């Protein structure tokens, strides 16, 4: 059994308990907190609490299908109906089908979601439709557009939104303060996070230097560093193939070290994921072991957590555009105890710089070494 989901009330801190049962049954509210603070868990427990309160027409909405899978695992563990979880795209399509609105998707995620939300907005504007859900619980609310958020509001009697601006990795323009407004001003801030070890947090902080938008998280970590000292290291290999071989070697020992736990292997690009999955299929791992190895793109890993994370192909991060820092930040914070980064060639300088916080400061170079004297520092 994995330790991603809580098993008892004793596992929750006061802020988390407040978010689950401290808000009146009919209220909408938002939950904020850093990665690993338990936002997804709280959505699941709140939905269970609502079901006990005879509120049954509920959907837990995730942004990606991989996050939906993670939520389904949690639903199973908490005894919730798995059909209550769906992606936003699925929810939108179902709604349009219900009202016989024709639409055609083209397979482009960004364009399809814009088209679907546009059609629903028009439908809602032309027809006064009462909220059809008793509650919608939205995970990763920071990734939705204003239009999508307004749709959620219109469709639900109660709207519960979990978000963290630090983890926004999709290109959306969201009006400042909109989420809070839609949540009727009710807000629960989760202070602590439990997922990632101190060293992992420090490196993540080094990636996003804007302390106002991205407050420090290492101080609020409740990870048990004493019993499981965390680590984050970077390794260089000649090729992606060599990186994958090294990752598979590491996984062998880690499956023994973390029995029954999920281990993550993440890459920036889909093509890298496919290459790893081919190698994994040809490896000597048995079915049970393979089920514990989850391989995603950095985008798709959002919302998941792994005891150990391997992030390969970091040389391609520089090709990921404006969200690249937030992508690697999100990927690193999927890891609880261990993070391994792999690259061939070069990685962006901000990664080296962030990792430097874990090394002792180098001694001052001698003046001679600046002119190429190799022995000057010895």
């Amino acid at each position, binding site marked *: *059994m994995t330790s991603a989901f809580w098993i008892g009330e004793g596992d929750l801190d006061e802020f988390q308990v407040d978010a689950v049962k401290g808000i009146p049954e009919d209220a909408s509210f938002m939950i904020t907190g850093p990665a690993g603070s338990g936002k997804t868990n709280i959505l699941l427990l709140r939905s269970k609490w609502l079901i006990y309160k005879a509120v049954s027409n509920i959907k837990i909405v995730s942004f990606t299908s991989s996050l939906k899978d993670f939520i389904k695992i949690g639903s199973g563990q908490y005894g919730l109906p798995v059909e209550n979880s769906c992606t936003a795209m699925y929810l939108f399509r179902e709604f349009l089908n219900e009202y016989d609105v024709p639409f055609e998707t083209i397979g482009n995620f960004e364009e399809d979601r814009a088209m679907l939300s546009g059609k629903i907005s028009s439908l809602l504007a032309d027809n006064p439709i009462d909220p059809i859900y008793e509650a919608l619980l939205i995970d990763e609310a920071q990734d939705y557009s204003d239009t999508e958020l307004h749709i959620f509001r219109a469709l639900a009697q109660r709207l519960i939104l979990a978000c963290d601006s630090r983890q926004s990795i999709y290109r959306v323009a969201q009006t400042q303060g909109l989420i809070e407004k839609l949540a009727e001003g009710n807000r629960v801030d989760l202070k602590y996070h439990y997922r990632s070890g101190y060293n992992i947090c420090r490196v993540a902080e080094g990636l996003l230097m804007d302390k106002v938008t991205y407050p420090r998280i290492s101080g609020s970590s409740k990870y048990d560093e004493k*019993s*499981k*000292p*965390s*680590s984050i290291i970077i390794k260089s290999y000649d090729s992606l193939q060599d990186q994958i071989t090294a990752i598979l070697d590491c996984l062998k*020992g*880690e499956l*023994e*070290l973390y*029995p*029954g736990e999920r281990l993550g292997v993440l890459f920036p690009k889909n093509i890298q994921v496919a290459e790893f999955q081919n190698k994994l299929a040809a490896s000597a791992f048995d079915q049970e072991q393979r089920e514990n190895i989850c391989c995603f793109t950095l985008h798709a890993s959002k919302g998941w957590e792994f005891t*150990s994370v391997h992030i390969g192909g970091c040389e391609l991060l520089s090709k990921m555009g404006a969200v690249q820092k937030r992508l690697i930040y999100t990927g690193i914070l999927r890891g609880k*105890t*261990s993070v391994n980064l792999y690259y061939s060639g070069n990685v962006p300088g901000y990664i080296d710089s962030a990792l430097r916080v874990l090394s002792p400061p180098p001694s001052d170079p001698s003046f001679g070494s600046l002119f190429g004297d190799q022995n000057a520092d010895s």
Partner: protein
Amino acid sequence: MLIRKSQTLDEILSSGKKNISSGDLFSSTVNRQVALYQCFWTKRDDGIRLPLFVVADSIEFETLFADVSTFYQNISPLSAYVNVCSEEVASQLFLESKKNPTPAKLDDKKLRLDIALILGEAVTDTFLLQKNIVAANIGYAVCTQTLAASIARATTLYPKVKRSDISERWALARRLTNQEEVGEAAKFVAYFSENFSGENSYRSSITSRFLHDEVSESELSEYFVNAFDLRVEATKIKEVYNARMSVFNSVVEKVYQSNELSEVKSACIAYFCNKILPGTMNHVTSLKAHAEKYPDVVFWYMVFGCLSSEFDYRSSMSGICLKLARDILKPFSIEERPTCDVSVDELSIISRVAMKASVLKPKAHRTVVVSLLPGVDVELSIGIPEAVKKTNSDMVEVDSIDSQKIKSLLFDALDLLSKNKYSKGKSSKYTNKNDGGN
């Protein structure tokens, strides 16, 4: 407080009233040899109208159980209603004292070691059957059937009881219910258990001196470090968590190359395996590869794990340890009826003829709850006899009823032989003690 009475079986069965028989001219004049039993009754009538305890010696047991199962089938097995035990056991229960005996103070170390041996036995047996296991999946039901669980419970209720006696009774119960041969793991339970209790005074190695509390854990650790050259590993295993499995593998490599005693090598592997994440038992699977060469390695791992300060039986292993602690520590009242289907003493006698479910009246299908001592029950599956298994596999068409008949006849023959053998010794026990007294 229970009331003691010396009674014959007839008197016991007539609700404790003396049997008044008025003979006539035609009554037999032969002196009947009537056995008397020390019975303990409760003051209140619980409706069962049988004593709570009958204290007897082993030959009296045989008579009592044979008489009940022959002539009073409706209350057979008697031990389902009445605790029947020896004088030695009864003396530890203070049956006639005015107050219930004060429960002994919780012995934290004993409880930890009891749990360690139960887990060690359950996992070792699983490994030796070539099955995989993770700590979270160790089954509670398997744990309750272990010898270690019976010893833990028995030594909690009866501090003076010998572990070897419990081992014998447990093995007998298994034999009588056609269980498989006692596994390798149960033999280690006896070794560890006797070492902890001091029953075994022979200390050959540093590890057995550790079990006797003569060597501390830090001294033992230092011994391992020096004996196997593990100074670097001892430091590294406390550092970055993700590197600990490779450190442990390095320990194993060095231990395998050494010429130390097997028991010390086994304990060293287990010690460092526990150091990966002390007190969690999370890495028991890593020991599977070594269990064949070092069959006690899992026991050592569980011992080090349960003695770790990080181990808390109330929260470890998804609640299994808490449930085991409940079973070991649960109160036992001498004023309560047995909860078993049959005691091992009675089972050994009534199994001499073919056992039927209608006689045993087990709580669950194909499972029987056997009492080893009052308050010490073990739940056992009723296995298929080896003879029947072989018959089935070799000669499929042979009717299994025939083999049951043969078995029944064999038991009868053995019964007759043993009665003849002991008839002389028994005769003095069958005199009416009332007559002797008058």
